[in-house]
């Protein structure tokens, strides 16, 4: 029996929300895991780096009381190492998440790829060479995760999905809607614009079975907006009722984001 189900049955409490989070070893992933591991059962999907939080592979120890049962260790993330660009890995990650927790309430498509072309799109073959990978990681993998999770778990559970407010948050970028001259973001920005539009289409189609789909479009973090404010934006979208929205995070650090009217 998956952990989440057994915990709910044994305590009589509502089970914690299960979050499948890709790119969990990066700056935003680690911040989200640190902040929300006590509230969510997080499946932290990592390629090379793992978030520095308690997991099935990692725990805290007090050097002066090494046998003490620390509160932080009771909320461990479940890390899964996977290269989502490889065939079959997306499906395997979903299988593992469902086997571990029995359901997924929130999918956060955070894994991304960015390579700037500082000298412009016209400078040699760099932009052409990097195009496919940008669209593979930033568009195709979020699409595959959404489709496969929909097919494997969500599409025949419309009432359950609505009852549990299940949803997807795609981590996009403000670059997907604005041009920041001189940054060399052309290819990256185009992929994020595609992700934004994919978000709206997914929202329209997944509404049939009660799953919301939104995107978060932050400015650069942590330099312009705080990483914590982006993490809060994800949690906020998870608890909202909106769908088909792209939420800009372009406030001064440590302020909550405002909803962008698309």
């Amino acid at each position, binding site marked *: 029996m998956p952990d989440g189900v057994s915990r709910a049955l044994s305590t009589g409490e509502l089970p914690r929300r299960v979050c499948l989070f890709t790119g969990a070893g990066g700056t935003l992933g680690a911040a989200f895991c640190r902040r929300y591991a006590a509230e969510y059962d997080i499946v932290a999907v990592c390629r090379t780096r793992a978030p520095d939080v308690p997991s099935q592979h*990692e725990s805290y*120890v007090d050097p*002066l009381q*090494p046998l003490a049962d620390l509160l932080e260790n009771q909320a461990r993330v479940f890390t899964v190492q996977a290269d989502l660009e490889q065939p079959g890995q997306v499906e395997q990650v979903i299988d593992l998440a469902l086997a571990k927790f029995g359901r997924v309430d929130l999918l956060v498509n955070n894994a991304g790829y960015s390579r700037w072309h500082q000298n412009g799109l016209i400078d040699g073959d760099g932009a052409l060479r990097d195009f496919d990978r940008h669209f593979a990681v930033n568009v195709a993998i979020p699409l595959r995760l959404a489709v496969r999770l929909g097919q494997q778990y969500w599409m025949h559970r419309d009432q359950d999905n609505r009852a549990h407010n299940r949803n997807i948050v795609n981590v996009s970028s403000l670059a997907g809607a604005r041009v920041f001259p001189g940054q060399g973001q052309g290819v990256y920005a185009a992929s994020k614009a595609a992700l934004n539009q994919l978000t709206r289409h997914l929202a329209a189609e997944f509404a049939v079975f009660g799953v919301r789909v939104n995107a978060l479009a932050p400015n650069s973090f942590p330099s312009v907006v705080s990483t914590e404010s982006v993490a809060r934006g994800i949690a906020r979208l998870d608890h909202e009722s909106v769908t088909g929205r792209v939420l800009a995070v372009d406030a001064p650090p440590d302020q909550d984001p405002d909803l962008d009217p698309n």
Partner: protein
Amino acid sequence: MHVSLESILANRRWVRRDTPFPHVVAGDVFTPDFYTQLHTEFARVERDNPQVFRRNMAGYDASAADLGNFRDGPFGVFASRQWHDMIAGVAGVSATGDVSGSLHHHEPGGKSGWPHNDLNPGWFAGPPAQPDEVRLSFVDGVSYHGDTRPPGVAARETIRAVSLLFYVGNPDWVPGDGGETGLFANLDTAARGPRAAVPPVNNSLVMFECTPFSWHAFVSNVSNPRNSVVMWLHRRKDEAVARWGEQSIVYW
């Protein structure tokens, strides 16, 4: 030297990791004030007393200064019984009170080391340590490696139980600088590089129980020197032999 660890430890949440083999890492180990004392003392030794650093480790591209030289200063914390017992507790081992340690210095461009597990013997002079005592290596002319000691001097053979490396006195580190402690899952795939690498960030440490599988190595430092305190706790030889067999002990 009595040390109040509660007053100098800044981080009470060290991180225990299972892969590629069980180890513990910790950042911001000491309070800023105490770390500054260590940093200053390391710089003073390098400046005023460089002859205490000896290049004496075959196949290992570093120079070392024995911890016994610094027992009365801030580095004495690493030779205290309180530190010994705390590290033994974190590692979950029963240690003898025998400590071997030194300050290490790698010049920029130091070569990567070879993966080794540290399950080596260590020889100490005199009777076993009392519960409140630490006995250091290289005392009374007894070679830690067991190859030489003066006639009539008693010595005991122990086996390394815990390895600990504390980074001090280094320039700021960024990825690509090298100088990490590489950790390996096995020797078979070691040529592909370490599975995990602990960077030389000041005031941080990595420690692990010495077992037949605790494969680790120094990773070449490309552009900066790398400085550290390296130390080992020890266990009784009969315990190590009973657990892993005589053939697992790596004699010098």
